[in-house]
């Protein structure tokens, strides 16, 4: 069941922080300040943050920064990180070369 979330709720103004230039998403080089700013732009879910900023969309697919981003977004929204659903997990779990992804084994199709 989806949760009713009024995006006009007042979360206060964006206040610049001393560590806003701290890199959070190592792959896409997204900073804490960018993430905090995005929350104030209305990106209140991990999915929207990811789509808006590319956090977790790099090679590692958010395996390193996922929890860090969640903590920052939650703090900005004044909620517990546990309330934020992580962004969707997608195939493939690890980067995979196109020629391999294209190469479906015949052997596995054999009925036993």
């Amino acid at each position, binding site marked *: 069941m989806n949760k009713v979330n009024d995006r006009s709720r007042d979360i206060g103004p964006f206040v610049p922080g001393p560590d806003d230039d701290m*890199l959070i998403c*190592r792959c896409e080089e997204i900073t804490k300040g960018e993430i905090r700013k995005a929350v104030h732009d209305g990106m209140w879910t991990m999915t929207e943050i990811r789509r808006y900023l590319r956090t977790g969309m790099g090679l590692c697919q958010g395996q390193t920064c996922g*929890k860090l981003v969640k903590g920052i977004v939650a703090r900005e929204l004044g909620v517990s990180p546990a309330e934020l659903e992580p962004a969707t997990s997608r195939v493939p779990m690890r980067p995979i070369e196109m020629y391999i*992804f294209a190469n*479906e084994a015949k052997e*596995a199709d054999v009925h*036993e």
Partner: protein
Amino acid sequence: MKRYDLIIVGAGPSGLSAAIEAAKRGMKTIIFDENEKPGGQLFKQIHKFFGSKEHKAKIRGFVIGEQLLKEADEAGVEVKLNATVIGLYQDKEVVVKIGEEICHYKGDSIIIATGAAENMVTFPGWTLPGVIGAGAAQTMMNLHGVKPGQKILMLGSGNVGLVVSFQLLQCGCDVVALVDAAPRVGGYGVHAAKVARTGVPFYLSHTIVKAEGEDKVTGVTIAEVDSSFKFIPGTEKHFDVDTICLAVGLSPMSQLLKMAGCEMEDNPKRGGQVPICDENGRTSIPGIFVAGDVSGIEEASSAMIEGRMAGITAAEYLGYMDKEELDKGMEELDHALNGLRQGMFAPKNRGKKITETEEGIPVSENLLTKGYVADDEIERFPGVTHAKGIHPVIECTQNIPCNPCQDACPKKCISIGENITSLPTVPHAEDCINCGMCVASCSGQAIFLVDEDCGDGTATVTLPYEFLPLPEPGTKGVGLGRSGQPVCQAEVVSVKSLKAFDKTNLLTMRVPKEYAMKARFFKAE
């Protein structure tokens, strides 16, 4: 499509254990693991495990891994390595990258045992080469035989931080400091004590201000933090290091379950995003089960039991076992698991400040804040005994589920009793025959054999020693106290390395007799 009764993702302790149980019941079972070697984290664990006999206590992690693999092989489990599961699709279809192909498999049941991933913490410079995860350090030194660095600062005093610090020392690295923002050591006191006594300073209520260096780490500054984790100005300390190792906890690696559509929850008690499951490991999707860290962060010993639970549950799900047999199996495993979930570090005690042991003894504050039991605290613990002649001194001061020492002594000098978490006592210290089995059996390296008065003004202290090179008898050096500070002159009397000691060498040093209860480590000059 190739079909199996059971497909397991992850050949770590829980996955292998699940496979063994399932295959023993006649299930056609396959395990996929993306790594080149099976065993998951077990192969990086070179220390002896805690627990009781049923939990494979006092066996080193990598040896447990080998044993599980052998068992799995004998049970007929197919273990596919270098096999990366790239997706878990509808109808329990598993797509795996093997070599330069992708293969489709169907499982009538699936157990996800993918383990955990390391948490990270940010500070200026945290992306510099030289800042690494503790897992990375373990992988490099224990799997690939390469030192992660020369001078290393460890962040994190949980069991991972403590164990990896010790492993770094074992492979010849210099650990310049062990730092944690928390006010108290998070891991087992015995793990802390064995690191502290070698001279590694602990900085609790401290964290990293910044990593220094242009192209790579050349130093680090730490500072003390207040109760709200804010830096206290003026408390900065600098260390020249080439490596900063991060051991700040683990998170379940549950993405495959989310992908499969299992109901998930964020449960801080279980370490993060986990599937909603019952104690058998059943998720919200019938036929998909979980075991091990992926469903909540615990120790490898618990993961093995959870694996067995999921294995028999899958067997019952597909009719390879009846309900009654499952219930019976679960009852036994439950008992074993409960055994592990007792004591001061039990999941239910997480985050609680414990001030007394189960015996009513005040805990060592020094151990929690500095990593070692202070000289004026040690005498209050029941294993610290005095007797004429050689006798065991057991510096085990916290209630943890572990009891190999009581079986190790052929003379039954040592007792823990029915309750596995009780502190060991030495009711028959005078019967000690100096065999050293207790010293070698203690996973926490907390047992010493002491002759407090050799009659010539000296005493001898026998201690567990897992470093190279082994000093020759006659080597002169200093005796280090529990804090790692030099306390007296010392000379090596003997170094015993028996097969039964399983690579824990017993170093006996002679010290002035007033240091019999103070000197706990030897450092050659």
